[in-house]
């Protein structure tokens, strides 16, 4: 090995706080004994012999019976001109489940949706998707969804409940009582119109938009600052410096995919060598923070102080007196000043984002951006006519009114206050007085459990809808499958109850035909417009964005008093579980958290320093005392967390849910509060102590450390500008004992840009869906038997308290000289003529030698026949891919089915394959465009060109295995 590489190795990367000292890696942890148990009970040798004898005698019988297994073939009654058996159809639609409303393409086979991909036509998501979008197709086949409407817990019919609900709505009007319609943030013109019609038709309806820990604070702040209740559009691609203050904008928030797209463009060294500079200021370690060039760790209480002082220094430097603020004494002064000076150097080319739930903080952040001249350059107020944002105070007022017996009816649409309000006892008590409670939920949840009537809504893949996803840009949803159950679009339920008989589809069409098209100056035949809009999934009215008005804050700023020296519990959102709506999705439950690598749980995130003082280690059960109540919860020691904060993820602890979500983790909402107009995170922890008991946390990444090898390579922008190969010494001279493979025809290779990958793990779920990767459950993940073909390795470097982080996607690297191939006794894994390492399931006898010999630890063994007992869930399986049985090894196939399909298409059309025509599942879904795949024998292909980049390297190149998957070094702008 070259000497330079050895020098590199001295950089001390590590993976986990407790693994930092290599000498102390617990080998017992790495090779857990339990790994070799089969099933839940131990079997004795005698049992084994009995079973063995039985299976031997049964075998010939079973096989001889199987000689002809009669199967039926049932054709369609009439030919559907859209469906050709074995050929996929793609439809555009829009995800209604989260506020970003990503535009999607849905792959259907023989009429059932099996895979979701990003729609490249969307100006916002631009073909990217997040884990939640990818997993949403599985929620369609959730067998716990309501099969029909319910009255007092009993299934009934829509006809039966409709008349009763309408009678109850009319009764309230005549009794002088009111009806509350509580819904999640509204994004679509049609829903908004239905709600308005509903209001007008009864005259006693209050509409309450409820979405805790959403946009409430920032929308209120924008209303105070600019007089408009709008959200921002950020233009990260035009910024030089961005400062995120406790804002996880790349992972959660209202627009993570759009922002990741922009962010990664500014991290692309092939586009621009002047990389964006990202400073993150936060108390917990977030995905966004892990991608920052500089990360400043402060306590939760100091976040407000930081914003205040940042505004103070920026106003002082510019001589502005926009807001009367005074500097608050704090030991963060040098840090704030350095951030201020960097921002001042990038006036009009910077963005400050805050994830604070405090209105005052958000007003101050607006002032900072205004003084810096960022508005109308890098930030605009997105004037979305058809959006209505949440207001936390409205819901609290509703509770007060309900306690005052003001309401006769309440309708819940896409909200779950019995779970996610911080004081559920109060909700229960207050709503007891309301006579009729109606839930429009798709699946059982805590709120539908308390409702008299359930009129189940459809899954978004079963219904029509429209959304304004950006100013003048509309996304359309269309049903891609006939409704699986006896349910009805929520909007249609509202229409029926107000006495209308229009279907929601017609309602949307009429609205567009009669009103919206004229409003947007569209002329021509409506059907043409409609067909195109539904085909594309997107309609862009190309409105000129209105200018953001001048900052004019007239009110009085209420400064939160900085509280010091107390431990705070801060709740946060994971990019898999989000706020709890997706709890019953096993793909998301099993997705390792990008930072902690934990699955199937939430836990108390504890800083290494606090862990040391309290003698806590990962997996310890700790008892915390918050708001007068005690809670026992597993702890996870997480680097980069401030010592005065402990973190707890939202979205867990669901009590009413399907079998995947019920009882997983603890509910974090009770540890929040309502103060100064918004729901607030960060309650005081009175005490925290170890219980002495252990808890099994299913982590996917305690069992390998980097052992001092340069698996990830990185450098700084300064060094890169001088020498593009900085940090990537290369020069490994290898002598191979193998003859070279013939390299004609197509030769596939993949490359991942570590500078662009944010670690969001959307690719993991995309791979799951494409390749029928099974869910194994918490116990099996704990036994290190997770099945993900693609994993994200996360490495730390430097200081325990504030480490630098690198995310590295790792899958089968398709070695030319693959070590797995040489040890397979049955030739079940062999090299293909186009350079892929093939795994042949029907040859595999399960010796697992290959997994032992794989230096990248990417092979997965089917220890069991994983659950396929849910017939409905099986509908999501990709019919082109084998469902692997017990005893078979599997791993990334480089989406061979996509390669074959692409080649076949080209052959059918009698033309050569075009570069970029074949997109792998991980590559397609990547919102950061970090993955490039193609033919290295085509000199014009993107990958051939990028392979020559001096940043290119291959992991463990010195082993001489010649991997086909390579990486580009990470370049930090610091």
């Amino acid at each position, binding site marked *: 090995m070259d000497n330079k590489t050895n020098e590199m190795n001295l950089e001390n990367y590590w993976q986990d706080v407790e693994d930092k000292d290599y000498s102390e890696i617990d080998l017992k942890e790495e090779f857990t004994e339990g790994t070799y148990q089969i099933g839940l009970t131990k079997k004795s040798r005698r049992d084994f012999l009995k079973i063995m004898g039985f299976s031997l005698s049964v075998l010939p019988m079973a096989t001889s019976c199987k*000689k002809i297994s009669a199967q039926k*073939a049932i*054709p369609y*009654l*009439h030919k559907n001109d859209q469906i*050709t058996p074995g050929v996929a159809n793609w439809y555009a639609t829009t995800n209604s489940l989260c506020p970003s409303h990503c535009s999607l393409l849905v792959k259907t086979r023989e009429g059932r949706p099996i895979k979701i991909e990003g729609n490249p036509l969307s100006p916002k998501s631009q073909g990217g998707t997040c884990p939640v979008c990818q997993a949403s197709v599985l929620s369609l086949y959730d067998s716990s969804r309501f099969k029909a409407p319910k009255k007092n817990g009993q299934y009934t019919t829509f006809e039966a409940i409709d008349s009763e609900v309408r009678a109850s709505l009319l009764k309230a009007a005549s009794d002088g009582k009111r009806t509350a319609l509580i819904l999640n943030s509204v994004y679509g013109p049609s829903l908004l119109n239905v709600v308005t019609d509903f209001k007008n038709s009864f005259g006693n309806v209050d509409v309450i938009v409820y979405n805790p820990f959403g946009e409430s604070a920032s929308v209120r702040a924008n209303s105070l600052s600019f007089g408009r209740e709008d959200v921002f559009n950020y233009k990260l691609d035009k910024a030089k410096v961005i400062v995120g203050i406790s804002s996880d904008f790349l992972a959660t928030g209202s627009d993570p995919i759009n922002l990741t797209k922009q962010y990664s463009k500014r991290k692309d060294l092939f586009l621009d060598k002047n990389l964006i500079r990202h400073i993150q200021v936060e108390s917990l370690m977030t995905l966004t923070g892990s991608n920052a060039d500089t990360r400043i760790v402060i306590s939760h209480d100091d976040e407000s102080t930081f914003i205040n002082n940042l505004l103070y220094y920026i106003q002082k430097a510019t001589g502005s007196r926009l807001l009367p603020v005074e500097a608050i004494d704090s030991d963060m002064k040098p840090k704030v000043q350095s951030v201020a000076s960097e921002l001042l150097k990038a006036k009009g080319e910077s963005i400050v984002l805050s994830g604070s739930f405090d209105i005052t903080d958000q007003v101050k952040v607006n002032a900072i951006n205004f003084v810096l001249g960022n508005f109308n350059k890098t930030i605009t107020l997105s004037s979305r006519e058809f959006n209505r944002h949440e207001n936390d105070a409205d819901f609290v007022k509703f509770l007060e009114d309900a306690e005052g017996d003001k309401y006769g009816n309440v309708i819940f649409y896409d909200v779950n206050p019995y779970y996610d309000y911080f004081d559920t006892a109060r909700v229960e008590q207050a709503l007891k007085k309301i006579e009729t409670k109606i839930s429009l939920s798709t699946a059982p949840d805590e709120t539908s459990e308390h409702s008299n009537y359930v009129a189940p809504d459809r899954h978004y893949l079963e219904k029509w809808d429209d959304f304004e996803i950006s100013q003048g840009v509309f996304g359309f949803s269309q049903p891609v499958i006939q409704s699986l159950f006896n349910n009805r679009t929520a909007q249609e339920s509202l229409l029926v109850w107000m006495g209308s008989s229009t279907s929601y589809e017609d309602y949307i069409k009429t609205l567009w035909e009669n009103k919206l098209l004229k409003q947007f100056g569209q002329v021509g035949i409506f059907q043409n417009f409609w067909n195109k809009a539904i085909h594309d999934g997107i309609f862009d009215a190309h409105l000129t964005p209105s200018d953001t008005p001048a900052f004019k804050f007239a009110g009085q700023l209420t400064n939160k008093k900085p509280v010091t020296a107390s431990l705070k519990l801060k709740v946060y959102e994971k990019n898999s579980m989000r706020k709890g709506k997706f709890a019953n999705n096993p793909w998301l439950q099993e997705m390792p958290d990008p930072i902690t690598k934990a699955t199937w749980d939430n836990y108390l995130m504890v800083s290494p320093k606090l862990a040391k003082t309290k003698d806590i280690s990962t997996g310890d059960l700790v008892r915390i005392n918050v708001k007068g109540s005690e809670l026992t919860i597993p702890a996870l020691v997480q680097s980069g967390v401030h010592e005065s904060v402990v973190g707890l993820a939202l979205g867990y602890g669901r009590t009413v849910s399907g079998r995947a979500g019920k009882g997983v983790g603890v509910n974090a909402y009770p540890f929040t509060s309502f103060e100064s107009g918004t729901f607030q995170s960060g309650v005081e922890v009175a005490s925290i102590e170890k219980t002495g008991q252990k808890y099994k946390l299913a982590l996917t990444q305690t069992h390998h450390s980097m052992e001092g090898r340069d698996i990830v390579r990185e450098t700084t922008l300064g060094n890169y500008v001088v020498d593009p190969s900085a940090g990537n010494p290369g020069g490994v001279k290898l002598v191979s004992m193998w003859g070279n493979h013939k390299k004609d025809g*197509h030769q596939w290779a993949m490359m991942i840009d570590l500078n662009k990958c944010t670690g969001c793990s959307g690719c993991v779920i995309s791979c799951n869906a494409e390749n029928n990767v099974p869910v194994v459950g918490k116990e099996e993940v704990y036994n290190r038997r997770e099945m993900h073909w693609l994993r994200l390795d996360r490495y730390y470097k430097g200081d325990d308290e504030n480490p630098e982080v690198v995310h590295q996607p790792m899958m089968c690297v398709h070695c030319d000289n693959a070590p797995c191939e040489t040890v397979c006794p049955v030739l079940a894994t062999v090299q293909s*003529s186009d350079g892929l390492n*093939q795994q042949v399931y029907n040859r595999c006898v399960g010796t697992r030698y290959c997994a032992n010999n794989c230096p990248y630890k990417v092979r997965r063994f089917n220890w069991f026949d994983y659950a396929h007992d849910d017939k409905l869930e099986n509908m999501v399986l990709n019919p*082109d891919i084998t469902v692997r049985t017990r005893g078979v090894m599997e791993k990334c196939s480089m989406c061979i089915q996509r390669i074959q399909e692409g080649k076949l298409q080209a052959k059918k059309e009698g033309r050569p394959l075009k570069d970029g025509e074949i997109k792998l599942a991980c590559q397609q879904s990547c919102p950061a465009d970090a993955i490039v795949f193609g033919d290295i024998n085509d000199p014009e292909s993107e990958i051939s060109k990028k392979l020559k980049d001096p940043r290119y390297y291959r992991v463990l190149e010195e082993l001489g295995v010649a991997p086909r998957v390579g990486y580009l070094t990470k370049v930090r702008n610091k």
Partner: protein
Amino acid sequence: MKIALSILLIIGIGFGAAQFVRFSRSIDFTENYAPQQPIKFSHKTHAGDNQIACVYCHYSAEQGRHAGIPPVGLCMNCHTHVKTDSPEVEKIIKAVESGKSIEWQKVHHLPDFAYFNHAQHVNVGKVSCQECHGQVQTMDVMKQTGNLSMGWCISCHRNSEIAPPQDHKSLSGGDCAKCHY
């Protein structure tokens, strides 16, 4: 004596093993399988005597993975006029009227781990239907001709002399993952 016994034993074991291998190789191979169908449909009458092109009914063979069994409605293209009084045709009419499709017995089985695409062979490779399915136009009852084993596939791929199209280098005989994924 002992030697003779030992030799006999070895031969016996060898013979048993050979039988076992032969037996296990034939498991699930269903050459000449000709199940009774719910309708006495004759390929000989349709494809042979009346010269109806195979892809008229099996229209997706040129486009997709499956050749498919024609929808019942497609039979009615002709049978609204032809042989409407036949009791077998009546079964079709009944299926259309009742809205319940016909449950045919599947003749050709491929295991889940083997991927076969009709379009690849029919459309790109220009392989005639008879090459795999035998002289279907002479069959009154549909019968499986080849044994559909891997060796049966490979033998054709090794011996065919079709020029590989464009930049696609070979007839993909050798790579496992061309069919197994």
